[in-house]
């Protein structure tokens, strides 16, 4: 690097520091790299964080990265912050990564992932006992959810095997006449729902929120016995005395994770990232505006920034 560009950088940094009046002296002016994945909610969360950091005078850069492959980049410091790591789908990779000591969990985002069996409202006519899970034990009801391959059992479309979720165990523990079919990917899951919904055909599947699907399609979650930690660990708990998993799914935290070096390189940004929180309702509303009302992510995040100035100013200590 030549001397002039270095000098210019220092200059830019000091100008930024003066105008923003915030970025601490020891904070680096290198860009903080935030990862973008391929779903809207994550794009919104990340853009919000990026906007906030920029307001605080930091240099940010967005990098498109795969949800799981990104850990390689976070560990080496090529990437710095991942804003949404879901307890249910990313826990294994996250634990493996933080165990190396090269990445660090930056706390919860405040959003809680709701994940459960879900069905469109029109299925209630065929299976009037819903949403109570015990209605599913009725053979006639299960048959209403069946296909040629699974009949007379009902067909439940679970998430990709990589998501975990213990649905095979749940079906066995609660003695449900259902067969669990795993979709290979998130997109396939919703393609099946879209297809069934267009035809008003039976479907029971794994849906999660915050997501656009519960806003777009009319339907309900099945109400299983409420999750407790004992349910998953203690077979004696719940209706089946011999098996665990005889309850619904837990609400999963959505975590922020990142490179362990962020703390030293950008201490101010580190605090701001840790302070960032947002809740399910806000997020659900923004996702709907983008995916269903056709607004751009930038429009939605700009509106949020304008409406919540007090909140984000507190995160960056202004």
């Amino acid at each position, binding site marked *: 690097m030549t001397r002039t560009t270095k000098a210019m950088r220092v200059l830019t940094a000091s100008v930024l520091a003066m105008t923003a009046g915030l970025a601490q002296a020891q904070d680096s002016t290198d860009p903080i790299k935030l990862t973008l994945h391929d779903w809207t909610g994550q794009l919104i969360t990340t853009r919000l964080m990026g906007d906030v950091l920029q307001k605080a005078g930091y240099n940010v850069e967005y990098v498109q*990265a795969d949800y799981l492959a990104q850990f390689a980049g976070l560990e080496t410091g090529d*990437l710095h912050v991942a804003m949404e790591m879901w307890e249910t789908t990313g826990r294994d990779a996250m634990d493996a990564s933080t165990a190396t000591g090269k990445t660090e969990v930056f706390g919860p985002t405040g959003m809680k992932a709701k994940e459960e069996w879900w069905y469109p409202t029109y299925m209630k006519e065929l299976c009037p006992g819903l949403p109570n899970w015990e209605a599913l034990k009725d053979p006639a009801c299960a048959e209403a959810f069946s296909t040629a391959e699974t009949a007379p059992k009902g067909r439940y479309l679970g998430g990709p095997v990589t998501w975990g979720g213990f649905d095979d165990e749940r079906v066995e523990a609660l003695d449900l006449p259902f067969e669990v079919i795993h979709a*290979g990917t998130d997109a396939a899951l919703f393609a099946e729902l879209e297809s069934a919904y267009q035809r008003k055909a039976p479907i029971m599947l794994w849906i999660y929120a915050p997501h656009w699907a519960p806003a777009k399609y009319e339907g309900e979650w099945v109400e299983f016995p409420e999750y407790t930690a004992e349910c998953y660990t203690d077979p004696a708990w719940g209706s089946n005395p011999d098996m665990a998993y005889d309850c619904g799914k837990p609400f999963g935290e959505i975590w922020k994770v990142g490179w362990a070096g962020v703390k030293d390189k950008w201490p101010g940004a580190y605090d701001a990232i840790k302070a960032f929180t947002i809740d399910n309702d806000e997020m659900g509303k923004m996702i709907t505006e983008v995916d269903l009302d056709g607004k751009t992510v930038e429009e939605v995040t700009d509106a949020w920034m304008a409406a919540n100035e007090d909140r984000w100013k507190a995160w960056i200590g202004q």
Partner: protein
Amino acid sequence: MADAPVLSPPRGLPRWAGWGIVLLACVALWLWGAKAAPWAFEWPRHATIPAARWITAFTKWLLNDASFGLFTFQDLTRFIAAVIDAPYRVVLSVLSTGFLDGQGSAAVQITPPLAWIAVLASFALLGLWAGGRGLAALVAACFLFIAVFGQWQSAMVTLASILVAVPLGVLGGLMLGILAWRHRWVSRAIRPVLDLMQTIPVFAYLVPILFLFGFGPTAAVVATLIYAMPPMTRVTELALARVPSELSDLGHMVGCTRRQMMWRVMVPSAREALMVGVNQVIMLSLNMVIIASMIGAGGLGFDVLSALRRLDFGAGLEAGFAIVALAVALDRLSQAAAARGRRPAVPGGVVARHPYLIAALAVIVVAGVAGLLIPAIQSYPEALQLSTGTFWSRVVEWINVNYFDALEAVKNFFLLNLLIPFKRFLLGLPWLGVAALLAFAGLRLGGWRLALLNAALVTLIAVTGQWEKAMITVYLCGISVVIAMLIGLPVGILAANSDRLWSWVRVIIDTLQTLPSFVYLMPAVMLFRVGDFTAMIAIVAFAVAPAIRYTVLGLKGVDPRLIEAGRAMGCTEGQILTRIRLKLALPEILLGLNQTIMFALSMLVITALVGTRDLGQEVYIALTKADPGRGLVAGLAVAFIAIIADRMIHAGAGAARARLGLGEARA
């Protein structure tokens, strides 16, 4: 391998006797062996070779501790990454971001990127130079399509990484190929490596690559190179070997040095064949666009993925066709450049000698200046963009609502009568019996070396605990390959007879080869649900391309004199086809079969996304669990299946050629 003697049965026994004995033994094992030797069916879990653990430990060591004393292995790969990154940044700046000062959001643009009109005109001029007006129009149309459908920004990002990856792949492949041609031991040593590079699914080694080369476009370029370079190496070796000896003799007589000999004589005279390799590098690089976008390359691949996550089929299709447009433009340009040949230099000044280059520079400068005043020249105006909007989603909905039940009936028929029985049959086979059968078939077709190879690879798959998943893989790919050949052969035969039909078919198979399968996979899920049938559709759609291509290649290459002779002897058209043309085209058709199998196997990772339970899914799970060993073991099992199929077909083609009295020269 070809030089190993083909064993024939002992005298006195008919040729089929050996087959009979081996088959009987295998059937006996299959029927009654389950009790006596359960390990021949399912290798006991406790005896499984912990290859996954070893490989994981090795990758850990490689990433963290491997060192050459002065610098570590990772320093070396990071240095390579920096070398690749430099030209990429330049190309990206020129095409997409403009030259920047600083990084991230603090960056300031010094110069804007090339105006869209300038890029379009430059490529059109390149087309005019290489192939005349028709080509120029085609290339311009491709780029216009990208601009009109609002894909310009992403397409330029993708184009930048392709423009870096392709020259590197071509150069690297050429160098390796030359080395392999010069030294027999290099050729022997790299052949299995090339097989592995082409057949191990990218997801299997993605994580180590990301550690070594850093997260971002550079790692994507490296992954692309690993996948796209092997055909170039193979073609180079083959092409150099085919250069007529008169030419090399001439080179020696006029006193060429070794270097002159290579670059002035050999490479130029093999140019036409080398361009086939270039074309493959381009096509395969564009194939990687989706995966590259997952690791920070962005561009069109990212648009396809995010559109399909919203189930916005129209947007996915538009981004997908932008990839096809890039592929068609680059492919036709490279073909034309190869066919053009070298023309004598025109006397005169710089302008007279390089009219196209000067014209392109002029357009770039003029458009650049004009673009500062008129934004529509700099970037395509948003108001004039087209979009299919919800049209495609509505088409899928219409089919779904009206024809789902009919489609479901067809699907169930196939599933219940074909797919499931075949799957059950394969899953019930003992690996020992399969190993024995393949070894014997190898012995008959290619000699004892092939027999040993087959037996060893099958055993390795079994003892690493991959047998069941490997059989599901064989079942899914096997059925798909059969269907692809059943479609590909007749279409190929028809297309070989009519140039007009062939030009249409070519457009379709080029599209199938470069359109990301994700684009049609999700509508297929809507119509056929997740599962093996949908996976099969995706595999067939992708693998039918080589089945058609090579059939046409073979049939068109049949010596017309032989057909005339057949006619003179009073053959009917049907007889000419079955007795003469198909027979003579058999080696090419077998090569097509080989490529169909390779293509089918390379789709495995994609089919894992619609819920299959094969090796592709194993690779995918390993990726999500951050377990490189597990992924590589599954990836190697895929490669082993591919290698067995490749060697058997190669040996079979050799035998067919020998029987037909065709020389090696017609491969």
